[in-house]
């Protein structure tokens, strides 16, 4: 052991790579089922009336959102943390048996959490708060998992060789701190069974807040879950993987720091845009709108920084499917961080709120930006972790185009559906009578729901291609030499 040179240890990164792929497929499969259910309601009872309880839209929807957020995305965040963290701090997990132990414990408890969450959501046990559906026993488990990750994170930083923390590390730290704070405050709840001498189920609870206050805390959390789950850690990834894969230094390191502080300061105040025209105080709604607009600046600071990193090297986009994934991801980041602020303008929101346009916005962000970046990161990591070439470059290209088409079908259909819906809901005659009833909108929207379902299915097909390519890479692809792993990822035909 002594004379073997020190190497990075990717044991934990590998485990989270597997869970990213598996939970990605599960979560998106459920998403596709939901999409078909909306287009063809008969799908709700596809397994028969008896099992309809488990297959209907309302039971499956939280399973979709939580599987893709806390399953797929979080696994991706951790897979990359256990990879990037070691490399930019220049320290190996193998150097600390304690950190290795924490890492394994982290993954094991996380798997237990996944099982509990999938089980309880399928059984219909939920607090009914969006993205915070888990009842208090699971919340406690999640806090423990989070703290273990935090110990590992700061532990690794504590034994680093590189004194200055690379910008990605800042973003990982912010992810840790941000979610810790948000999650705890939003999930504060009173277990009814214990507070009432045994009424109801032992796991049931009610939120510590009520009415408008509950809504404020919920959307302070909900929007910042987007910030600290879908933005901050994904920016952490792209700041490492794009420069590394392309061999180009970040266009402006100073800009990356500046956008970091901008993002931290501004994001926290934007959640009010989910509650426009509600019972929330007017100034808070205005603040939500204003901060949402200001948010364009730090968001574009990162996105443009990424695109400019490719300056003079644009031929790489044509040559490498991996760079394509990342450039498309930052382009989608650019677009969705413009689209979001537009939707947060009060007059636009009056039209857009509660419509499919919001769902379209969510998915151009998550499919185009989050999922593309996570998959690109895994593609970059695979040969370094498994010491084999990416199995097939042409499969990567195929996946890229199928999924790009899928995203485009998804968001364009939802734009049209959403705006149609919004217009129809408010149309009225000269006396103020509504021009349409709800079912009129449903009839008009049917084709767009079908297009979305087709787009989602294409995206899922791409996920299967991704999983297959990764599986072959892990098991039977050609071995690579260490020297081939400097920048551009080696790929088989």
């Amino acid at each position: 052991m002594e004379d073997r040179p020190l190497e990075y240890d990717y044991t934990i990164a590998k485990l989270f790579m597997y869970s990213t792929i598996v939970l990605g497929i599960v979560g998106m499969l459920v998403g596709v089922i939901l999409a078909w259910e909306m287009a063809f309601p008969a799908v709700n009872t596809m397994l028969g009336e008896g099992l309809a309880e488990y297959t209907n839209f309302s039971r499956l929807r939280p399973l979709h959102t939580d599987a893709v957020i806390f399953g797929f995305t979080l696994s991706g965040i951790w897979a990359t943390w256990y990879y990037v963290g070691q490399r930019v701090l220049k320290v190996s997990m193998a150097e600390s048996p304690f950190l290795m132990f924490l890492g394994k414990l982290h993954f094991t408890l996380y798997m237990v959490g996944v099982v509990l969450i999938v089980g309880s959501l399928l059984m219909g046990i939920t607090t009914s708060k969006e993205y915070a559906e888990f009842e208090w026993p699971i919340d406690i488990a999640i806090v423990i998992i989070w703290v273990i990750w935090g110990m590992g994170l700061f532990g690794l930083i504590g034994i680093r060789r590189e004194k200055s923390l690379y910008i990605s590390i800042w973003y990982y730290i912010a992810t840790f701190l941000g979610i810790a704070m948000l999650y705890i405050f939003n999930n504060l709840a009173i277990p009814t069974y214990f507070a009432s001498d045994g009424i109801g189920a032992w796991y049931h609870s009610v939120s510590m807040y009520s009415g408008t206050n509950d809504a404020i805390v919920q959307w302070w959390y909900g929007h910042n879950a987007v910030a600290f789950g879908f933005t901050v850690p994904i920016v952490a990834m792209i700041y490492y993987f794009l420069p590394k894969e392309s061999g180009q230094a970040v266009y402006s390191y100073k800009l990356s720091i500046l956008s970091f502080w901008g993002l931290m300061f501004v994001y926290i105040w934007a959640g009010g845009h989910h509650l426009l025209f509600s019972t929330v105080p007017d100034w808070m709604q205005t603040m939500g709108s204003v901060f949402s607009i200001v948010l364009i600046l730090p968001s574009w600071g990162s996105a443009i920084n990424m695109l400019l990193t490719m300056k003079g090297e644009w031929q790489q986009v044509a040559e490498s499917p991996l760079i394509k994934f990342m450039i498309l991801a930052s382009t989608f980041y650019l677009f969705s961080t413009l689209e979001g602020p537009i939707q947060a303008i009060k007059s636009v929101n009056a039209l857009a709120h509660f419509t499919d346009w919001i769902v379209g916005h969510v998915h151009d962000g998550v499919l185009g930006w989050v999922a593309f970046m996570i998959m690109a990161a895994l593609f970059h990591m695979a040969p370094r972790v498994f010491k084999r070439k990416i199995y097939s470059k042409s499969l990567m290209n195929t996946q890229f185009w199928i999924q790009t088409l899928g995203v485009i079908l998804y968001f364009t259909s939802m734009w049209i559906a959403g705006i149609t819906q919004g217009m129809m809901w408010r149309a009225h005659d000269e006396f103020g009578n509504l021009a349409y009833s709800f079912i009129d909108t449903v009839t008009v929207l049917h084709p767009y729901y079908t297009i979305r379902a087709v787009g989602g299915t294409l995206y899922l097909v791409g996920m299967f291609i991704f999983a297959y390519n990764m599986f072959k890479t892990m098991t039977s692809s050609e071995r690579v030499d260490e020297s081939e792993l400097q920048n551009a990822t080696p790929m088989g035909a």
Partner: protein
Amino acid sequence: MDIATLQAYGYFFLTGFLVVVLYAYIYHLYTRRKSNAGIDYEEYSNIALDDDISATPIEKNEKREVQ
């Protein structure tokens, strides 16, 4: 002065203060390389590009003895 006027002044000066802090920070980022101990911020980009475990750190962590 009533509370609303005070709030308005408070808001105005806080915004002004934050703008000053922001520009001071940008100034700091740009000038740090010129000071004696300074390092050009752009050099930190190399932490990602040059990330082998045996690579020389951009800034060595003195607290950690060399392995």
